[in-house]
């Protein structure tokens, strides 16, 4: 059966990983990280290719993809806001900031906006526990979040 453009890209990415790092034991998580970095999410169509490359069952791969919170099975928004919900941020007003973030970004926690611009996700601790409430916005740490910070973030991610 001829490859579709997607499966050709998937095969190429997996082969590249296998040539560079595939000899290590326990390569499944590193491979899934590499694929998510490249494609943005782990498409269900990737699973059989990953399973074949590592000589695992599809069920094994599916089980791992669905176990870890980091791995997405759908594309995220163009901007990703990971807002900390853990105790130290709560001690600094995190719960109110969470409600305000949902309101100002217009997405529920764990959701992506209808226009695909922004995804809001919970994270349980970024290790910045004395300067919260904290978030990672497109990979950049942001601390001491207040209402003004949220306004700035909302403008940034919906621009």
């Amino acid at each position, binding site marked *: 059966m001829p490859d579709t453009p997607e499966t050709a890209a998937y095969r190429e990415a997996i082969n590249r990983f296998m040539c560079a790092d595939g000899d290590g034991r326990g390569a499944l998580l590193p491979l899934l990280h590499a694929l998510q970095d490249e494609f943005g999410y782990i498409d269900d169509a990737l699973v059989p290719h990953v399973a074949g490359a590592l000589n695992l069952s599809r069920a*094994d791969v599916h089980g791992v993809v669905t*176990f870890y919170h*980091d791995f997405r099975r759908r594309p995220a928004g163009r901007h990703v806001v990971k807002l900390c919900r853990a105790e130290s941020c*709560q*001690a600094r007003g995190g719960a109110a900031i969470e409600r305000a973030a949902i309101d100002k970004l217009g997405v529920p926690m764990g959701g992506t906006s209808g226009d695909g611009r922004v995804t809001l996700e919970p994270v349980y601790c970024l*290790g910045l*526990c*004395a300067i919260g409430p904290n978030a990672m916005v497109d990979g950049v740490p942001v601390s001491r979040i207040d209402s003004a910070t949220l306004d700035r973030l909302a403008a940034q991610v919906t621009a």
Partner: protein
Amino acid sequence: MSRVYISRDMASVALGADAVADAFAAAGAEVVRTGSHGLFRIEPLVEVDTPDGRIAYGPVEPDGVAAVLDGSHANRLGRIADLPFFAAQQRFTFARCGVIDPVDLVDYAAHGGWAGLDAARALAPADVVAIVRDSGLRGRGGAGFPTGIKWQTVLDAKGDEKFIVCNADEGDSGTFADRMLMEGDPYCLIEGMAIAAHAVGAGHGYVYIRSEYPFAVATMREAIARSAGRIAPFTLEVRVGAGAYVCGEETALLDSIEGKRGQVRAKPPLPAISGLFGKPTVVNNVLSLAAVPFILANGAQAYAEIGFGRSRGTMPIQLAGNVKNGGLYEIGFGITLGELVDTIGGGTDSGRPVRAVQVGGPLGAYFPRSMFHLPFDYEAFAAAGGLIGHAGITVFDDRVDIAKMARFAMEFCAVESCGKCTPCRIGSTRGVETVDRIIAGEQVGAQIALLRDLCDTMKYGSLCALGGFTPYPVLSALDHFPEDFGGAPLAVAAE
């Protein structure tokens, strides 16, 4: 040309250190990026090389460059070591953090680096294990198991290969010492792992770092690549987690490195006998391994003579949450909770009264002010119905609703449960529902009795500390803050 030192720690960057560093570079200063000293109230912090030593200024904004360089900046602090927050610390593990360029091998060696590894490699493996045992070092991840005994078990175990695994899955809220060490002095951890490898006969090691710590991942990878020749024939690699708190449990962590779902294994067999890929494996926390170079370089006695009771040496304590002087405070065991929170921490950041502290992360107990006499010690905290865990202290002011925090403890357990054992997987969800009924004022007495019974089942019936310790925050909340449950007139409706 002036030389200035500015932290590249993730917390410093979150507070704006990159923009400050760029401004100094644009002004022609030589900028050395370091780890963080660990007091976030004074960050972004800039230290300037002068004939009188490194003079600190902080916090500094990008427009403060000229004032810092001519010495007129209003936030002049003087020498870091002279500040009250730092003067009384006993920095064994964090001695270099904030001082050196984290990935500069010359800097590391000039500040005492590799002395522990050189001392270890001049000794027989059994002698290295004996020194670690005699130091009294106990596992800093929370369980407090004697490190030397764990190493002895792996040394004695038969295996065609053995592994050193560093647990850097620091998921507890209120803790950040592992992150700071990996970002600020990564060779210290690498040296500790190389000493462990020599002591037990391991050839390869893994540092398992949570994905929420991208700065630590990058720094450790760079440091491992740069120091490969120095630690050879021992080899190391970083593995990155994928957002699962339970992978901080050592057997779940091993399954995760093996490429599986991070589910907890039943023990026995102990990882020391049958660990990673079924081989004898040392699994130690970052802080345990990073304490080892000091012990080998200075001797077991130098470490063991500090401390309290059976808790020997120093603990890098993390002051977090609503606290004025939040940061990292390394000190010998035995200091009281009250000294840490009120004197060193300076009370709350909001200026309101301290009402509660949670010690040891999401699985740690909530303590009221009436227990601030407790000495920081594994046994004292266990006797008081809590744990010191990874030594994070999260401070709450008088606006905290402890019933909501008890609910959150159950909610967090439900989100993060690996699902293998029933008390944790199902008990946590039933726990959320039960606390919700208490908060709503439904049959409060009966529901509290039910919640206590559920906690009993989770504590004794769970496979690992996630389900087994979630009762600590819940029961301590019930015991010490009964006014927040049910009968209180201001009880708020469930969300």
